[in-house]
């Protein structure tokens, strides 16, 4: 009766001549999230005042939050990368939050979407690492103070861990989103099933209350996952900029 994984199916809305021209629900909701973000931020900076209004205060607080996060985690040298980090944070947060609108589509639950972002981070980290540190960047695979006889064991492990990073970064976000939405759908399904029982229909209140609580938790998780994605990007960037 309940098919909790059905909501993650990507279905075409407008079929194009090529696969990459096809408009799916994924495209539509990504566009909606980006449009909402752009609207909020354009409104926020359209009439700048010394004493900010609501919109401007929201934009400024968000920016300062990510800026201090970047500075604390990756140091002052990471501030030139602020545009990318800020974009990643806003993009993930907006997609996570908009997926909580009923009948919308959880874009970040698609592994392909999150994998693109995390592979971008990996490529950036490798590029920045070799640009800033040169060949010394490779030294991060050899932790300081390792006995020489452990090196053949540690170095491959460090290399494997390094290339697992984008994978875990992507799966963490996608799995959290999938789990949250499955949970929401399960409890919504319980409500519907209990309403179907004639005498016990009133008991549907309990899963309904749980549903509201879980929904509130999911709003928190949506923002938390965006924060974690951003922090880990900064941590990886820190290693590329300053060494291990």
């Amino acid at each position, binding site marked *: 009766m309940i098919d909790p994984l059905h909501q993650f199916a990507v279905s075409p809305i407008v079929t194009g001549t090529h696969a990459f021209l096809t408009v799916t629900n994924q495209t539509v909701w990504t566009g909606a999230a980006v449009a909402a973000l752009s609207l909020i931020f354009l409104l926020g900076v359209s009439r700048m005042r010394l004493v900010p209004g609501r919109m401007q205060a929201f934009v400024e607080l968000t920016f300062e939050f990510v800026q201090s996060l970047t500075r*604390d*985690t990756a140091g002052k040298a990471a501030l030139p990368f602020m545009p990318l980090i800020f974009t990643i944070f806003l993009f993930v947060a907006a997609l996570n939050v908009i997926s909580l609108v009923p009948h919308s589509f959880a874009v970040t639950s698609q592994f392909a979407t999150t994998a693109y972002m995390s592979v971008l981070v990996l490529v950036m980290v490798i590029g920045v690492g070799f640009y800033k540190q040169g060949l010394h960047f490779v030294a991060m695979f050899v932790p300081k103070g390792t006995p020489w006889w452990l090196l053949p064991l540690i170095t491959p492990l460090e290399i494997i*861990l390094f290339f*697992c*990073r984008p994978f*875990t*970064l992507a*799966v*963490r976000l996608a*799995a959290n989103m999938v789990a949250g939405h499955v949970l929401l759908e399960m409890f919504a399904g319980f409500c519907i099933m209990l309403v179907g029982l004639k005498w016990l229909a009133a008991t549907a209140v309990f899963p309904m209350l749980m549903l509201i609580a879980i929904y509130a938790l999911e709003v928190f998780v949506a923002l938390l996952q965006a924060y*974690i994605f951003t*922090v*880990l990007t900064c*941590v990886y960037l820190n290693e590329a900029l300053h060494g291990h």
Partner: protein
Amino acid sequence: MAVEGVTDLGVLKALGAGLAAIGMVGSGVGLGLAFGKFFEAVGRQPAMEDRLKTYLFIGMALIEAIALFAFVIAIMIIFVI
């Protein structure tokens, strides 16, 4: 309960996926320990919070990676193999 009577591969797949998900237990314990110790440390020395938070997130990424590997293996057993 004769196992040799099981001809439906789906049953064994579901069992295998469930067994593979046991690997998440250790990660759960680890996350609890890491966060508990973090709160303890910040309670003792609140000035260190920002430094510790960075290390916490690095550690959390490593611990959670184990759970994610278990999750992926479970998903692979169900959908890929």
